[in-house]
């Protein structure tokens, strides 16, 4: 216990609001921390806006569904990169594991979608947990190379195991039952988008809660100052293992959704491009912000779709320029830049 001897100091600066905590009501510091996790009107607006494609762009619902999946995938990367500061170039490994797990589950067991999601999440979490023991031991370049290596390894393994995965032909025979036995996955993508969006939103709620939990605070501590953590008694490696496992599970769910909504799985789900793309989306939108991956995924996917209509061969040229501009001008991504702008605005 800290002795009472210092009370003399605190009395001087204790404001009346602080003393109120004695009455049992939440103290001012508790109120402050609660206010940080409160829903902002813009957040509500954002989620309402995600319903607009149903009405405004009914012919683009397949794209909207892919965007929701990309956003979910970017959200999972944000947990380890944006909040715990772990750079991964092989995150598609878990996306692919989830996609193949869900696809194979529907092929060999049954096609009920939600149980497929759970299986996919569990498989990805298991592999994530096992590899996290390696991940948690390294930082920086070593870590980038390890994640890259693990990703390539898995992609090659899936390629070789053609009897199981279908190899470069893709996994055939994925049959997903209607959601709740009623909503069929149709050609227009109405069910696909509704399903992807619902999964994204539910997982987002869970991640939002995680970020505002004591564990979320410790992850931010790891990102802010990795070396100080042991000196406050923290076992950073245990935290990283946990974060990595959770991120893997969410990436697995994202992969499962793509497998279920498109009713096929290709090797592309495990590819290096997918790992790189998700990193780009997150950095564009703003890592370490709950909505960074979401906004990044929207911009990236819409831009790619538009580009492919005009000059698909120049897509990486365009995204390269955009990426360079963003990291040079807005080191905290587009959302970081917006936040800075509004902060300046409100100060005036």
């Amino acid at each position, binding site marked *: 216990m800290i002795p009472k001897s210092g009370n003399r*100091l605190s009395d001087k600066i204790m404001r009346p609001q602080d003393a109120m905590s004695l009455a049992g009501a939440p*103290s001012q510091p508790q109120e402050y921390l609660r206010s940080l996790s409160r829903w902002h009107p813009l957040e509500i607006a954002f989620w309402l806006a995600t319903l607009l494609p149903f009405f405004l762009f009914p012919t683009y619902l397949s794209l909207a569904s892919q965007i929701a999946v990309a956003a979910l995938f970017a959200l999972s990367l944000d947990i380890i990169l944006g909040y715990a500061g772990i750079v991964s170039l092989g995150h598609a490994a878990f996306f692919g594991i989830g996609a193949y797990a869900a696809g194979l589950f529907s092929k060999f067991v049954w096609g009920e979608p939600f149980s497929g999601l759970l299986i996919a999440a569990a498989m990805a979490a298991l592999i994530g947990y096992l590899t996290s023991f390696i991940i948690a031991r390294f930082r920086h370049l070593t870590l980038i190379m390890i994640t890259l290596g693990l990703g390539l390894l898995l992609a090659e393994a899936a390629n070789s195991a053609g009897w199981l995965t279908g190899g470069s032909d893709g996994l055939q025979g994925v049959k997903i039952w209607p959601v709740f036995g009623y909503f069929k996955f149709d050609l227009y993508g109405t069910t696909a988008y509704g399903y992807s969006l619902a999964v994204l939103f539910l997982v987002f709620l869970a991640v939002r809660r995680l970020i*505002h*939990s004591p564990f979320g605070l410790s992850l931010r501590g790891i990102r802010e100052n990795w070396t100080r953590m042991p*000196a406050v*008694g923290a076992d950073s490696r245990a935290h990283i293992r946990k974060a990595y496992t959770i991120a893997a599970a969410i990436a697995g769910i994202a992969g499962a959704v793509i497998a279920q909504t498109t009713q096929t799985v290709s090797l592309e789900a495990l590819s290096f491009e997918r790992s790189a793309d998700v990193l780009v989306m997150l950095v564009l939108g703003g890592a370490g912000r709950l909505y960074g991956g979401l906004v990044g995924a929207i911009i990236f996917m819409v831009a790619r779709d538009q580009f492919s209509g005009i000059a698909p061969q120049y897509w990486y040229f365009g995204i390269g320029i955009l990426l360079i501009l963003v990291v040079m001008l807005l080191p905290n991504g587009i959302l970081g830049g917006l936040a800075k702008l509004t902060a300046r605005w409100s100060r005036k």
Partner: protein
Amino acid sequence: MSEANAPALSTRGLAMSFGSLVVAKDIDLSLPKGVRYALIGPNGAGKTTLINLMTGMLKPNAGQIFLGGEDITALEPQERVRRGLARTFQINSLFPGLTALEAVTLAVCERRGSSGEFWSKLSSQSEAIDEAHEILLRLRLGDSCYQPTRELPYGRQRLLEIALALATRPKVLLLDEPAAGVPQEESGDIFEAVADLSQDITLLFIEHDMHVVFRFASHIIVLVGGMVFAQGSPAEIAADPRVREVYLGKRKHG
């Protein structure tokens, strides 16, 4: 050595070198409970290294470290912290993007074992938050607690270093130049805060200012070239001609 009357912290034959540079040699120390030690010595004497060895941030080439009679030599730094051995850093090592309240709450949650909870709300950890706030008030950081650490004035950051260490509820607290880089008129505030700490906490602080050392320490250890050169009460150290020669004397001329 029985647990009850064992020294709060002790070392036996501690040795360490960086290549050919010997930074610790045969260090045998024993800090009784509740005593306030100053660790002094010229630049490069190995003072910070000694704290790094005690806290496990460096592994010694030889020797052992005991906390309350328990051999902690093989323990990881965070395990030592959880057993009650905390430190601060000569060069600020804080969490720039966290507010002072968040940073101290983080440390309190780590101690209470709630830092792994990802399903509970931080804001409902009322005891941890209030404890963190109380620590900040005690160090007169009450009106800075909602500010990001990177925006705090330097002197307040030095106090936050101490606040983070206190959040671990240390039995032994090692302060590495707590007022380093702080203008003289503010360094008094920092040492007042240190002096106000519980008498139950065994304290060892590194400090170059002899006025401060003689004012706040009940015991002094002089480290020179990685070796314990002398130790004793402030009066004994002040009267020791050898110490005057290698350390105090140099100060006078410099």
